[in-house]
């Protein structure tokens, strides 16, 4: 689960009043590299409209001839302003200042963009389902399909995405089981799952796709897991590791074709838990969905 952050650092690259212009190349390199690190950056040269923020920390970076006492940064109440002179510094050294403020100022998550990753582990690719409530009918099929506790139900009985970082990177399977084409993965390669407009063809395809109950009835997950385990034990006896690996990949690819409409990545298939755990989780998910549906059915019609 991703923790809510109390405040975010806003880095303001400032070239307004009382400061000298920043050379164009440095400005671009600095802003680009800060964004690539996941920072929130604002750039100000002249008068103009910037969004106002409550409860944030603003780090003002500028070439100041003398350190200004205060800056007209539109800082609202609850905002803390930090000012640093970057005259004569390289983009790398300036990034060092930003990292330092980000790590030491009160209430800032110290490593932007690292949500869901361990300190030493890889950066989390923000991959998770997003619900289009203009289309969602609250049928709970996604809830009963997902084994990883990504979905939940609000107090008001509405489907919601509650544990984004539990989602399996690059796996869009739940969007394929949604009968309303209401689940998006903004970083998916193709439409309509990536948020592209939905065509009549897309809707027809959704109506034709595998019925979720037959999917769970057939226990597709445990079938996949068993086949993956069999493949593993068979290939452990192989001397030629490379060939074994290739063969296993081929086998998994074949399975993948069988569930092609779900587009589950091979890595996800091969890392599924044991068949018993899968059965248990599928049962829990199904129960959660049924409870939510019952609760909603008992609600008075408004």
């Amino acid at each position, binding site marked *: 689960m991703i923790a809510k952050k109390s405040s975010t650092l806003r880095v303001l690259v400032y070239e307004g009043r009382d400061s000298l212009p920043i050379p164009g190349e440095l400005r671009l390199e600095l802003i680009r590299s800060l964004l690539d690190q996941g920072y929130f950056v604002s750039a100000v040269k002249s008068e103009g409209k910037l969004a106002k923020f409550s409860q944030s920390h603003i780090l003002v970076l500028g070439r100041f001839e003398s350190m200004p006492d205060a800056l007209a940064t539109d800082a609202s109440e609850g905002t803390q302003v930090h000012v640093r002179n970057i005259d004569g510094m390289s983009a790398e050294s300036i990034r060092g200042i930003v990292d330092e403020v980000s790590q030491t100022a009160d209430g800032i998550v110290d490593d932007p963009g690292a949500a869901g990753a361990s300190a030493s582990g890889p950066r989390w690719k*923000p991959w998770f389902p997003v619900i289009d409530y203009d289309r969602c009918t609250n049928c709970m099929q996604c809830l009963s399909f997902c084994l990883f506790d990504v979905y939940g139900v609000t107090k008001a009985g509405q489907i919601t995405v509650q544990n984004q970082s539990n989602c399996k990177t690059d796996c869009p399977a739940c969007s394929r089981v949604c009968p309303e084409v209401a689940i998006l993965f903004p970083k998916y390669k193709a439409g309509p799952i990536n948020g592209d407009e939905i065509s009549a063809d897309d809707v027809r395809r959704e109506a034709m796709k595998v019925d979720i109950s037959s999917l769970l009835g057939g226990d597709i997950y445990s079938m996949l897991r068993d086949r993956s385990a069999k493949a593993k034990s068979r290939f452990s006896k192989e001397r030629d590791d490379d060939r074994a690996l290739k063969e296993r990949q081929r086998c998994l690819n074949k399975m993948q074709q069988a569930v092609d409409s779900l587009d589950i990545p091979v890595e996800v298939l091969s890392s599924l838990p044991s068949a018993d755990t899968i059965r248990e989780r599928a049962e829990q998910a199904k129960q959660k969905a049924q409870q939510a549906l019952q609760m909603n059915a008992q609600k008075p019609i408004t």
Partner: protein
Amino acid sequence: MTQQRCVLFCRCAFARVVPDEVKNDVLTHLVDRAEPFDAVGDLCEMSARKDPMLADLASQGNLTVVACYPRAVKWLFSAAGAPLAAEGVEILNMRTETAASICNRLDGKPSEPLLSGESS
């Protein structure tokens, strides 16, 4: 007189779904312009964290978001508890539009270059 717009650029830093050329060219254009702008590393990641800044951004009257598909951006803000206003928000899609077209729209020019002989 046109009302000033806030511009929010998304770098889509944690995945390669927006063509590099488009996001680099649009960012260079924004950085070279005189007008101020806000930019985020990855809107998806901010939405997952329910970053309170998204609510502040959503509450801006006139907002242009330069990111990806409008439907994705709309529901990412909503998922963070920061729904975008129904009016006054413009979303430019770097996955489908060219950098030139986006830069023109940011500058308030027609999105396609004018044919020679046409006056602006």
